[in-house]
């Protein structure tokens, strides 16, 4: 996403949107080039200044768990910035092809909609 999207999110404030940024401060896949957040750019500060009504920083498993629970219970648009270590998986291969995932997701949403209207 681009930074301007924070202002679009803040403009409409969908209460059912929880936005989590996992920030490893690097482009890991090419060996760890530092990104702007490694040199001082404050994403949580930008989210606050954009008008996102609830912004949290959570750099431990415990604080992230607590922040996510609070955000889901709050019915308030929330951005959580979570600093993580720059460690990646051995492979990015997945057993679920992109298009299969996409059609599964759409069908799951349809099923949820059906359930809610019954």
């Amino acid at each position, binding site marked *: 996403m*681009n930074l301007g999207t924070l202002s*679009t999110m803040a403009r409409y404030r969908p209460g059912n949107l929880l936005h989590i940024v996992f920030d490893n401060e690097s482009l890991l896949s090419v060996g760890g080039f530092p990104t702007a957040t490694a040199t001082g750019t404050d994403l949580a500060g930008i989210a606050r200044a954009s008008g996102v009504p609830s912004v949290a920083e959570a750099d431990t498993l415990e604080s992230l768990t607590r922040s996510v629970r609070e955000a889901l219970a709050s019915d308030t648009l929330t951005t959580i910035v979570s600093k993580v270590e720059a460690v990646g998986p051995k492979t990015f291969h997945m057993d679920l092809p*992109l298009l299969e995932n*996409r059609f599964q*997701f*759409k069908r799951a949403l349809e099923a949820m*909609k059906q359930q809610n209207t019954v």
Partner: protein
Amino acid sequence: MPVSTTSSRLIYDALKACDIRIMSALPETWLVHLIRMADEDPDMTLVRLAKEEEGIGISAGAHLAGVNSALLMQNHGFLAAINPIVSLAFLYKIPLLMLISYRGHFGEKDPWQTQGGAMTEPILRAMNIPMWHLSNPADIERRVKDAQTLAQAALHPVAVLLHRELMWEE
């Protein structure tokens, strides 16, 4: 203002006839009436964007949730949105109904629009995005409907180019 209210109304009604319920837009002179109509319509959700590429995400979400949407953008906004069109809409087979104001083409007085005008069609063709030209009000209803039908059948982006003859009265 010389932006055509009559053509804008015909385009808006054609979108409504396609059951479009979400429209995303950035402010743009030729689109001003269309954006206002969407804003004043209680049955339409207008999403005002910071950048055109966000509209691809809005339409992807709308499609996955089973809602028809349309994107209003200037051709320079289309040029700015190419990456998400390729890496989200093409990759995940998301239909997009893109209404693109065709600035910088014949009749353009603003020098800064002219490069974008010259590049719009070649880039649409290079991306294999089907395009309809709209320059005659009589074509609006049918071509908007057919564009939406193709987008839904192909699960692919389509472009409707809004020409000066349609949008600008002088």
